[in-house]
């Protein structure tokens, strides 16, 4: 079906209206970021003055130099540790979430409902309650101050299973059955048919998981106390004592923490654009 000329008008009208809303909305969304980035270039004095300035009057790179050059902060090691944990967890979580999401969507077995609601309810538990026993287990296994301590327990993500179940439901059963009839094994089906269908979901959730692991602050700090295994977010509060707050340094640190996540996001973003819609068969 080709678009007839009469359909052009509502299209352009719609587009103009969209921009009319989107542009101001984007500015609002970006404003705090702008504030944060600009603040990272300000001196401590300027950060604290009343009334505040938006654009730095006295532009300085000192904050970044301070963060990057601080002898107490081996940033390279922190970046490495964060990357290891993040990548490992992304891979295993994508695997378990897509696999079990698919299973919950397309298979029946005894206790499925119960198991599913159990997994769902895991998302609602405040983490403070499981901190101590979780830590106890890690200690018993000798995994404190070891990156594996943050990787092994993180293999299953309730939210992921939930999400992938949702997306997997729209995979046409005929596709799966046809493969089975042709003699394909279940894992083969999962790998060759289900996974490609879940493309955008994998990219999206993979990125979210990356970000979540990258930004994780409290738990890594408690489990990894030695400097050479610590992760990056520690630099976010490194420059504030109990009450002393050096916002300009903290903002510079925040920028340094966000950059890799931003990078990953931009990579993945293209993938979603070129990607396959999860409905699989068009038209």
């Amino acid at each position: 079906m080709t678009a007839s000329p009469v359909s052009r008008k509502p299209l352009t009208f719609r587009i103009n209206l969209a921009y009319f809303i989107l542009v101001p909305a984007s500015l609002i969304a970006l404003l705090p970021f702008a504030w944060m980035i600009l603040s990272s270039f300000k001196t401590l004095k300027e950060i604290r003055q009343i009334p505040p300035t938006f654009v730095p009057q006295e532009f300085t790179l000192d904050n970044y130099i301070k963060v990057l050059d601080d002898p107490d902060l081996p940033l390279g090691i922190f970046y490495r540790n964060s990357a290891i944990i993040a990548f490992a967890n992304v891979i295993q979580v994508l695997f378990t979430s897509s696999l079990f999401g698919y299973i919950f969507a397309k298979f029946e077995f005894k206790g499925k409902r119960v198991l599913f609601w159990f997994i769902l309810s895991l998302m609602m538990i405040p983490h403070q309650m499981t901190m101590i026993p979780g830590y106890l287990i890690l200690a018993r296994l000798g995994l404190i101050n070891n990156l594996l301590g943050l990787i092994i327990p993180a293999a299953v993500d309730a939210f992921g299973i939930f999400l992938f179940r949702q997306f997997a439901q729209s995979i046409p059963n005929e596709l799966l059955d046809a493969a089975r009839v042709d003699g394909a094994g279940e894992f083969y089906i999962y790998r060759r048919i289900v996974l490609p269908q879940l493309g955008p979901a994998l990219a999206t959730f993979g990125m979210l998981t990356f970000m979540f692991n990258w930004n994780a602050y409290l738990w890594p700090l408690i489990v990894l106390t030695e400097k050479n295994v610590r992760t990056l977010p520690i630099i976010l509060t490194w420059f504030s004592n109990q009450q002393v707050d050096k916002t300009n340094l903290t903002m510079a640190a925040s920028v340094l923490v966000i950059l890799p996540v931003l990078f990953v996001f931009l990579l993945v973003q293209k993938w979603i654009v070129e990607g396959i819609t999860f409905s699989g068969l068009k038209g």
Partner: protein
Amino acid sequence: MTNATQTRWRRFFRGRDSAEKQFLAGTISPLVFYMAFWTVFPLLWGIALAFFNYSPRQTGGFLGFGEGNEFVGLQNFQNMFNFSPEAPLEVQQFHIGIRVTLLFAALIVPLNLLITLPLAFLIESINDKVKGIFRTIFFLPVLAPSVGVAIMWGFIFHPQRGLLNAVLGEFAGKLIGIAWLRDSSLTVWGIPVALFAIVVAYLWQDMGYNLIIFIAALQGIPQGIKDAARIDGANWLQMFARIVVPLLMPTILLAAVLTMISAFQVFDIVQVMTDGGPDDQTQVLLLNIYSYAFRYQKMGWAAAVSIVMFLLVFSISLVQTRLLRTEWEY
């Protein structure tokens, strides 16, 4: 169906059964074992806490229970029903916590959906090239670490150095010194302004999630339907109301449930921006739990509150699901 095909299908269904069983056994059992170890055990321990007077600073008996951490049975739960003004501070804060958290979630879910769904729709409706830019912009806040976000917004709301007051001051022509986050006497329609401030900060950071979910879902609407509607002369409003919303209902429900669950879990932002103030107006449950678990040595009480909070969230999501049950599977 020919004989050959019949045999093939028969063989297929028989084989399928055992292949399927093997597959399920091979995947579900490891999952169950894994979760029993890493999730169920800590969970049971956390629940058991609620029946003790526990502090991590005390050494206890088996698994930390007993001895210094005495068994108190249902006492923590009984205390929760103490509504008198002389009730211990933690009970009073618990009641406040429930009210504030429910209020917060009730504000967040509709506001979030009202912002993200139309926004996703608008983004999907424009030129492919520019689409990516807008998508990135609105998703950026999600990428920022919570600590940074909270400090940023705390800064914006600062009474003397904040962006908000500076902008208002420009318009008013004089210095504005409203303490958005600290003045307990500021309320709008009975809701504390400080809570609104947290809502704004949280929405800002959180909208990216639902945006992506809705965009992915919108991409899944078959092009044919969209074209048909356009040919029929539907304008964008009708497109939205008659086509997008009904088709996306399961996704909307998903987003609503997930947003609700995470709204209940708000913590980082509140702790850094207001720490429960002013005057307990933003004392959300998780903050309450954290304070009593780690600052004030009442981890048993905190565990009891956690259980209540969990039951609350669970029942709300059950209700949400039931209400739109027919559209859950599509």
